[in-house]
């Protein structure tokens, strides 16, 4: 008891925090503001707990605690913190802010378990612990039918993908007699069955990452869910899966090592092209974000082509950059959606005239996602392409790069909307709340300086 709690202080803390919120709710406190503040405080303490240096430790082969997964935890919590700040005005007005907070904390504990796993079972438990409450949260716009539908679609399709994941894991267990990630590669012989197991596990991951052709749920779920949850799915949930991809899937991938790059590059191209082409003519804001995030996933997968430390560093670095860039866009998008009540890209029209700060924030975020130097996004993409470069033929890299140009087209469209179009509907409150402003400011600073300063890449390299 002592050892395992010592290993997961964050989960222990989150559990107490959940009990606290639950207690307050039962005792009849019903102020949204209170719960939002409690939630923020809880996430902040969690960040503090992982930031506090601790020695590496492990509990059997179930849970590992090391600098690497403390880093990713910190990133996930930080992303969550920003998202909660940006959705706080929506959440404060919600009757069920307490329930929302509890669900979110459960999701965070689940993700925390998942990223520190040393064992396929814990991985699966963490994953499910995070997925089920998320589906409930996706349907949290209680009056919107789309939101309810979004939640249902998320839970049903993720149950389906989990089925495959579990099937794959069972096959692996059957073949090797172990579920410890460290032991699997040693015992796994090359066989067709192993290959099928790999593909099933991979498909489960690909579903969660919304890589094509497992992406069909993405746009619908993103569109229906409340914006905060959309942001959470696109940023936090995606990053955690990408990280586990690196730590879980890579080691046991040896069975299909020799064909892996070719298969993956095909998926990458499919993913990036589909994401970009579907994003080109979107008019719905959230669907647009969904498809552009699909395209970004394709880039993340570039770092998975060749298992190497450098590739892993480039993926992690990209995740950091991706988080800050997305924060800058989602924050403003949510703020606009709350005011106009519309899920449309035309929300952005004339934004520069009404709130130049917001417009610059979105513009920087978009530039970074499009990979234009010297924003951090460029370095992120450059490292990913550079690390994928050694695995496959240069022509695939050219095709991937070509997509950076295509994506520029639709990202610039929004920049044009903001700076050059006339305002359609004047905003009621063109001023932003201070916390939102600060979160955007931090994002913008990160985009500008994360690429130009080298400490984060150096820090990441030391983690391996």
């Amino acid at each position, binding site marked *: 008891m002592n050892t395992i709690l010592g290993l997961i202080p964050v989960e222990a803390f989150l559990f107490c925090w959940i009990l606290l919120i639950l207690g307050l709710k039962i005792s009849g406190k019903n102020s949204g503001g209170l719960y939002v503040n409690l939630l923020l405080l809880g996430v902040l303490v969690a960040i503090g707990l992982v930031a506090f240096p601790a020695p590496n430790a492990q509990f059997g082969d179930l849970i590992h605690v090391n600098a690497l997964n403390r880093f990713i935890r910190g990133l996930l919590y930080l992303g969550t913190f920003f998202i909660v700040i940006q959705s706080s005005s929506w959440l404060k007005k919600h009757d069920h802010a307490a329930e929302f907070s509890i669900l979110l904390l459960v999701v965070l504990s689940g993700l925390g378990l998942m990223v520190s796993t040393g064992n396929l079972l814990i991985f699966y438990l963490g994953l499910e612990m995070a997925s089920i409450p998320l589906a409930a949260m996706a349907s949290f716009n209680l009056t919107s*039918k*789309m939101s*309810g*539908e979004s939640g*249902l*679609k998320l839970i*049903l*399709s993720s149950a*389906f*993908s989990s089925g*495959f994941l579990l099937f794959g894991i069972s096959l692996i267990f059957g073949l090797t007699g172990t579920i410890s990630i460290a032991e699997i590669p040693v015992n796994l012989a090359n066989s*067709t069955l192993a*290959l*099928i197991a*790999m*593909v099933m596990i*991979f*498909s489960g991951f690909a*579903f969660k990452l919304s890589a094509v*052709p*497992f992406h*069909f*749920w993405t*746009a*619908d779920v993103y569109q*229906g869910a409340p914006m905060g949850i959309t942001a959470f799915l696109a940023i936090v949930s995606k990053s955690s899966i990408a990280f586990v991809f690196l730590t879980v899937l890579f080691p046991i991938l040896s069975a*299909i090592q*020799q*064909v892996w790059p*070719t*298969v993956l590059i*095909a*998926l990458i191209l499919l993913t990036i092209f*589909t994401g970009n*082409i*579907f994003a*080109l003519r*979107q008019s719905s804001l959230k*669907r647009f974000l969904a498809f552009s995030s699909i395209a970004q996933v394709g880039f993340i997968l570039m770092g998975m082509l060749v298992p190497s430390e*450098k590739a892993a*560093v480039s993926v992690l670095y990209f995740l950091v950059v991706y988080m800050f860039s997305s924060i800058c866009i989602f924050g403003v998008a949510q703020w606009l959606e709350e005011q106009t009540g519309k899920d449309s890209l035309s929300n952005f029209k004339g934004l520069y005239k009404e709130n130049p700060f917001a417009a610059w924030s979105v513009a920087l975020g978009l*530039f970074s996602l499009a990979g*234009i*130097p*010297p924003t951090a996004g460029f370095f992120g993409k450059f*490292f990913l*392409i*550079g690390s994928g470069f050694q695995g496959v033929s*240069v022509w695939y890299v*050219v095709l991937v790069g070509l997509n*950076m*140009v295509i994506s*520029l*087209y639709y990202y*610039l469209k929004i920049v*044009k909307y903001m700076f*050059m179009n006339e305002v359609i509907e004047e905003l009621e409150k063109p001023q932003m709340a201070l916390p939102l402003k600060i979160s955007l400011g931090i994002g913008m600073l990160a985009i500008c300086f994360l690429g130009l300063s080298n400490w984060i*890449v*150096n820090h990441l*390299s030391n983690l391996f």
Partner: protein
Amino acid sequence: MFTPATEAILIPLIPFLLFGIIGLAGRRLPEIFSAFLGIGGILASLLFSLHLSVSYFSEPVQGAFVLKEFFSFPWLNFSENLKISIGLVADPISMLMVVVICSVSLMVQWFSLTYMKGEERFQMYYAFLSLFTGSMLGLVLSSNIFQMYIFWELVGVSSFLLIGFYFQKPSAVAASKKAFIVTRFADLGFLIGILLLSYETQTMEFKGILDYFKSGNFNPEVSGIWMSHSLAAWALVLIFVGAAGKSAMFPLHIWLPDAMEGPTPVSALIHAATMVVAGVFLVGRLFPVYSLFEGVMQLVTWIGVLSSILAAIIAISQTDIKRVLAYSTLSQIGYMMFALGVAGKAGAEAGFTASFFHLFTHAFFKSLLFLAAGAIIHAVHSNEVENMGGLRKQMPIVHWLFLIGCLAISGVPPFSGFFSKEEILLNAWKSQPLVYGFALIGSGLTAFYMFRLFFLVFYNKSHSDVHGHESMGLNFPMLLLAIPAVFAGFVPFSSYVTSTGLPEETHLHLMFSIAPVGIGLLGIGLAYLFYFKQNSLPEQWASKLSGLYKLSRGKFYFDELWRAVYQIGLIRALATPAAWIDKNLVDGGLRMGAEKTLRLGDRVKLIQNGKLQDYVLYFLMGILALILLTLLMIQS
């Protein structure tokens, strides 16, 4: 007072700092104050760069001007062959460029003081100009190719901001977007070229790259061959694609004429003297490597020749004063490009010198011409030559200045353009007589279309309703630019800039000059006949040569070609069906589902409408396809 390294840092740093200060202060800063900040900063940079280049050229190493590294420190050790450092270097061409950039930028900023007066975002204009100048200076001083790429893109971003400065005009917005996307497309080639080249040489430092090829370590058999050319050759081709995009070489030139939508002083800076020659600079920087690859040099040569000739033909029939100048810029950069290309042949190495000589003189006379065009547009409030005519009375000083520019570009002695163009033609002759032939035709065309413009604007039919006027604020910077436009040709250029770094004697071949000067004068004479007075000759010849005329008016239909590729290839063939699928198949289920829920209030039914089953079906198909694919791959 300052060490050379400090000076080298300060030269690009000052404009960057000013961008930060003016940009952040924005409207809180009085207009005039922000302008003086910008001008003062660039003046300081100019003084530093003059001092730096004088001290550089006064200290040759063993009689030669070599690549000198001020400093370079490791910044990122990403992987074995991806090490990136930050550093600044000096060599003859970068010293040349810093002086050109700073002096033209100074004149342009000074000119803008009057030209942009009363513009709504006056402060931002100066902030963007500083950003552009700083990035351009950083580009030419970079010690490694990756750092250069960063500045290269920053130059693209700031030119995007400047071209789209009049963002109320839809055409300006479209033009800025086009410029950005087209050059980005080309930069993709550059980026991949960088990756390939650094893969081959294991370094990104220019010094390291040049040493690698000099030392003879390079072996095409080892580095890998694809389609009978080595990896390094392909890397150079891709880098050249980037260079051709920035320098607006055919067929990637389509963004430059549209970019004329920006403020005219911006065109003088970006589209005449600095950014568009970045491509020439890039090829020049890697020249010792390029010259090892015969095939790549042929590509550079012929792209240059094609651009210079086609652009000259298009310029003949354009009626927008800035577009004529834009096409003439294209044509002149074509000259610089093929001069580099022919310099690969033994005996014609001085083509390198000639190319940069022309870059140097062109920067002055072309920015003079652009600023003069700006002064005319400022007075007439139109870009169309239709609305000009007879302006020599209203604008006598501008008239003389424009004439100087035209004489210089037409290669009439003793104006600066004569010397540099002679040099180019001479080396083309030594290397490939066919190139020389094209170049000769091109210089005839140049003289013709420039004087056509000159006569149409200042002579021909006059408009009594135009109240043109001149102002000293506009004229003075132009007068200063006119001095080098006349005299820059007397600089003994080859004692400073050569492909080997060893100073050489300059020779003037008087007999050789007869043909080019003759054909230039012929062009001027024809233009005089056609356009000095209003007459029917232009229409007669236009109908006689109607095929060629249509091609020229239609700009050889490159825009249409690209639009077709883009519209049909991307939008019609892919994005529209994608949007339809998304709306009617993927999204349709959701809408339908929502309506059904409304009617039936039955959430379970919703899942039965087939939508989710579709997801599952796709998912299954995906897994099956993946399994099949991996199995097949393993079998084979």
